[in-house]
């Protein structure tokens, strides 16, 4: 790469920020003083001169898809990609399920992983209460359930991973969106190249169609008269076309088309719906409230799920063929859309 586009912050600014592609994963934040996450947004604080920086190397948006190992694999994978097993699952603990988004799997699996010493700490996304959600490191299993439920805006949670590593924490489990799983994969490749041991030992990826820009969402909700502190958000199955927000003040519905206006621009080029790079991928079980779709992708993931079943922490059922093909279809659709959008963007650049 020439000097004008070094693989450092300059490149990040050039290829990600200037194009508005940042998806607020947080992989570049808190590695150094130059990149910050504040109030729901990742921003460039000062200019870094490094021509070879982790921010650029780890960013899931820093190079057009298809340009490094992770991308090549991702482009090759069809639909939901390679996996070992796919099942329907839910946590056995009813209480945990209640506060959870779907089947409470993320919470249940992490709790177990920490109990067994598979992980020392977990990187989770907090509720933010009246502020933006953000990444936190959790060191005690009792605390994990306090983070259940989905925030539909991106949260820069990987910044908490960077802070944890800075403090010397080893064996870390991360729950995150597909872009965050991709960042972890790039990070992993970097560690291999530098012959260092990756601290991340468990990756639980969520399904994701898109995430919202926090500041836009917050301004919208305020303007539309939302009261109370947000507990969780949900998108009830079609044809509802609504975005539902549960707060301490009640339940509020907003038209989904309004909400879609606030999708992060960077999500439009995303080609991964089911967290290809996770050990375990989790999503809703369409049409069955209180259950998760669970994809086991790695040996690590398989071991953890087996243990959870044997210990009676979770229950699993077979995943119906029909759901499987719908999911695969949906995942392929997102991939096609993302690839198209990204192609258009590159063409636009070449054209201009």
């Amino acid at each position: 790469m020439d000097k004008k586009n070094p693989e450092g912050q300059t490149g990040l600014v050039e290829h990600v920020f200037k194009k508005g592609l940042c998806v607020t994963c947080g992989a570049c934040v808190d590695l150094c003083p130059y990149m910050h996450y504040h109030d729901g947004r990742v921003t460039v604080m000062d200019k870094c001169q490094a021509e070879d920086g982790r921010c650029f190397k780890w960013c899931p948006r820093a190079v057009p898809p298809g340009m490094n190992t992770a991308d090549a694999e991702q482009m090759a994978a069809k639909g939901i990609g390679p996996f070992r097993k796919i099942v329907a699952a839910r946590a056995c603990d009813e209480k945990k399920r209640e506060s959870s988004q779907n089947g409470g799997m993320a919470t249940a699996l992490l709790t177990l992983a920490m109990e067994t010493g598979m992980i020392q700490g977990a990187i989770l996304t907090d509720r933010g209460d009246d502020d933006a959600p953000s990444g936190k490191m959790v060191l005690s299993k009792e605390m994990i359930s306090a983070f259940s439920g989905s925030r539909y805006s991106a949260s820069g949670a990987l910044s908490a991973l960077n802070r944890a590593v800075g403090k010397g924490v080893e064996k870390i489990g991360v729950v995150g969106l597909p872009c965050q799983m991709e960042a972890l994969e790039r990070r992993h490749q970097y560690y291999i190249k530098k012959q260092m041991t990756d601290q991340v030992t468990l990756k639980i990826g969520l399904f994701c169609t898109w995430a919202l820009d926090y500041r836009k969402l917050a301004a919208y909700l305020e303007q539309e008269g939302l009261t109370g502190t947000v507990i969780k958000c949900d998108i009830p199955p079609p044809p509802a076309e609504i975005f539902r927000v549960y707060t301490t003040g009640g339940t509020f519905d907003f038209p989904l088309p309004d909400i879609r206006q606030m999708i992060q621009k960077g999500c439009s080029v995303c080609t991964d719906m089911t967290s290809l790079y996770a050990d375990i991928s989790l999503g809703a079980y369409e049409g069955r409230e209180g259950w998760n779709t669970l994809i086991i992708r790695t040996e690590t993931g398989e071991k953890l799920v087996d243990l959870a079943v044997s210990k009676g922490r979770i229950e699993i059922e077979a995943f119906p063929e029909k759901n499987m093909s719908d999911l695969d279809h949906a995942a392929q659709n997102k991939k096609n859309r993302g690839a198209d959008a990204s192609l258009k963007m590159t063409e636009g650049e070449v054209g201009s």
Partner: protein
Amino acid sequence: MKKIFQKNGNINLLLQGNEAIARGALEGDVSFCSGYPGNPSSEIIETLADAASHLPIYTEWSINEKVAVEAAAAASFAGLRSIVCMKQCGLNVASDFLVNLTLSGTKGGMVLVTCDDPSGISSTNEEDARVFADLADTPLLEPSTPQEALEMTKWAFDLSEKINNIVLLRSVSHLSHTRSVVRIGELPENEKKARFDTRNPFHTFPVIAKHNIRHEKLKTAETIFESSSWNPYQGPEEPELLIMACGSAWCYVLEAVEIAGLTGRIGILKLGTTWPLPKKIVRETLRKCDRILFAEEVDPFIETAIKAYAADLGEEAGGKTFMGKASGHIPSTGELNPSIFLNLFEILFGLDLINKTYREKVGEHLDGVIFPREFGFCPGCPHRGSYYAIKQALAWDNRDGFISGDIGCYTMGIWPTGFNQVKSVHAMGSGLGIASGYGKLAQFGFDQPVVTVCGDSTFYHAGLPGLINAKFNKSDILLLVLDNSATAMTGFQPHPGTGSTATGEDTEPVDLEALLRSLNIGVDVADPYETEASAQKIYALLQKKGPRVLIMKRKCALVQGKQGGFPYQMSVNHDVCLGESCGCGRYCTRIFRCPGLIWDKENMKATIDQVVCVGCGMCADICPRGAIEKTGKRN
């Protein structure tokens, strides 16, 4: 007592131009002295403030230049002699009163000193304040040396009383800040009583009549000028070139003519009284030569006037060749120096005066090696913390926000020392006025947040009206008062917030917070040293509307240093310091840029320069690694 205040005259002292002006005022029996600080003028009032503890005079730092002239005018109206001092920009502020004052006239001798700053070495502009002499029909004196500065100042009071109007005296940096041997005169000892004669009011009505009287006064001044000794001619009766010079430029001309060996061929008319033109003298001198060169600093002031006068003379003046700023013979901007004239004489007289080979050789050798020294805030300066916090808040905010700046040390926010955050700087208090305008642009789609910064001294000078304008017009303005309790830029003159006057007397300080609260504007206070907490506050304020004020309160580092110093002994732990690697990239020395932090090239780590670091501890908080350590009290 300092020698400059002694009663007896007839001794030689080394005096700075500004001190000479002060001594001239004392010899001229001044009673009332006022001014507003600003380089290169400040030392005049400083000297007179010092004098006030030995001699029966009154000296004050006024709130701004306009009030300074007004206060001094009161003394004049009551029959006392007064002097008022400022820099060129200050006269702009004072000018509204000045143009009215010259209609009403004065009684006790009154002198206004403006110290212009050619090249704008310590100013935001390069300006020729002499235009106000023309604008306000005021006699104007231009000394060239400290000795002359003393004598002219003294003389100016007499002139003022003869015509009952204020007299302007113009200095420039290279007179105000030049020291030379000066022979002082005796100080008068007159009993004085201030009294306003209610039978003779001072106002501008009827305007036309007063305007006519003003013109008459100017005519009288012209006559006096013509018979004065301030405009000597020196040189042959029929010179090949006639130079009309004033102020410091005269010194450069004189020397250049001598160096060039042209004393027998060039005539020099030194003009000491430049407005109104001493026409008789100019007319006689013009007869000597058809080639005329003007030497003066900043604008072609006498050049334009003399050319116009020559046009009036018509036939008599004949075909003259005028050279100066208009013709391009003299640069139209920047300070003058002897070199400019030597270069010109080389061309005009076909001489070889400048060592060109040496200059070329040196030039080649130095090419690309020499760079300007970057200015920066002092070690421990609270402004560094304030700008760091603003930078952080604006970056978080992410709407391409910026700072509307103002005049003071913190003007340096336009440079890396203030993280280049300041995007506009003009006149005293303008940052607020401009910000009040930005705050009304939302209806035209303006969505960038603007922070305006203003020092405490500047805020009192001219900032308050801008803020009240914002309040009145419901403008979205966020003001950060950088309250460092000092007029640090110009040398720590007291101001209304400091609790003491120019002469060191105690006075109740103005309570800035209470003042702002009385406007019912939300006020909060933050500590610039607590950069993270300050940034959070600023960020939160940026999200709000209407007028908002945050006072960034922390004493100027130089004041803190004098008052017992700073708390910490600093060091950098080289085992922890990341240096240039990813994760830091020399953040402290490259971005934070406190001169107390230096780069250890051998170890490729940051280090504290123990001589320069004052131990404020700010940098410990900005290091991403916690490598900068602060421990207890400094030894």
